């Protein structure tokens, strides 16, 4: 998230609260729990790293919310590199998959039950994301982000349906044997 804050300063220098407002607009409900203090902590770290400089607005007391932040040349370079970097969040399914394998091998838990519990949880998350999406004006940046979250959850739920079928079959074969 440090990189995102930095990139927002690339257009023009800004106060911390201006950055926070822009982040919240782009993130919609995902940005709601972001507290005001976090952005100043991030900005202080970036300043320490020499990526931003701050200037106190004239004649006002020294408080972080009065400062205007701007990119340094090093900050500019970092933003340019970040924007073209090819990176993607990992679809981290291996751990859950291994959990099912372990449950079946040790007979300490029923894989089909584990899948069902996970499915219920993901459906609740999907419901929440879907609700938030319907509440956003169509075409807003936050709606686009929520659509991505909804589609990923949908893909995960389809995978869980495949898991459920496969492990039920293993169950039945074990019973028949």
């Amino acid at each position, binding site marked *: *998230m*440090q990189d995102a*804050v930095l990139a927002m300063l690339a257009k023009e220098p800004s106060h911390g609260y201006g950055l926070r407002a822009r982040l919240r607009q782009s*993130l919609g*409900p*995902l*940005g*709601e*729990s*972001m507290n005001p203090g*976090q*952005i100043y*902590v*991030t900005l202080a770290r970036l300043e320490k790293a020499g990526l931003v400089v701050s200037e106190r607005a004239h004649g006002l007391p020294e408080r972080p919310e009065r400062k205007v932040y701007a990119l340094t040349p090093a900050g500019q370079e970092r933003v340019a590199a970040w924007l073209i970097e090819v990176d993607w969040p990992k679809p981290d399914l291996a751990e859950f998959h291994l959990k099912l394998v372990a449950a079946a091998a040790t007979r300490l838990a029923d894989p089909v039950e584990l899948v*069902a519990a996970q499915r*219920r949880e993901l*459906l*609740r*998350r*999907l*419901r*929440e*994301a*879907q*609700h*938030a*999406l*319907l509440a956003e004006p169509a075409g807003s940046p936050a709606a686009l982000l929520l*659509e991505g*979250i*909804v589609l990923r*959850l*949908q893909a995960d*739920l*389809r995978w869980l*349906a495949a898991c459920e*079928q496969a492990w039920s079959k293993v169950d039945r074969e074990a019973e028949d044997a």
Partner: protein
Amino acid sequence: MNVVVRVRGLVKEHGQGQSRVRAVDAVDLEVPQGQTLAVMGPSGCGKSTLLHLLGGLERPTDGEVWLAGRRVDTLTERALARLRRRSIGFVFQAFHLVEELSAAENVELPALLAGCSRREARRRAGDLLERVGLTARARHLPSELSGGQRQRVAIARALVNEPLVVLADEPTGNLDTAATLDVLRIFEDLRAEGQTLVIVTHDERVAASADRLVSMRDGMFVDDTRLAGTGTGWLGGLIGLEG
């Protein structure tokens, strides 16, 4: 709690002798007024048959179907047809609109069949098409509408007689993402107004938007999950500025 749909020991068998299959196997279900219930399950699990039994489109082999306190599986064919027309709204995957009639006429038709005056039917159709955002398309034939628009006409038609329950069979099965969202928005509004809905679906998005989800397999319910009022605050926790 007013129960709109009540089902006891419901069984439906198809076929004869050796090839006899239980499509629905001893199902019990209660849907209270205002609940949106989704039914999911693999193809052939019996979910569409269940919906047909609830709507009086098929008769059960055994068990009982009650609608708003009235037993319906024992009604005569004629009384059942009347009940379907007046008290149940159907929405199908393939829309089932009358191709020769305009959008407005399609919506008016069930009202006229239920004995409404022309004027009253026209008024209701106008209101409903406005609610589904199709006032400007009222005079169009179904062939002149997109899939999403046709399904919205079908939903308006399902609502025209203020049914006790709307039964929807794969309502978004033929729709793209944008049209699916339109349908979900309409269902959301209906829920807010206290309409009872039973939706059979393959679509996780539709299922997740329901208050309650039952999963079917081999004609039986294998899971019954309450989704409403279980918000986890998960979305707000997805993003931290740190890191």
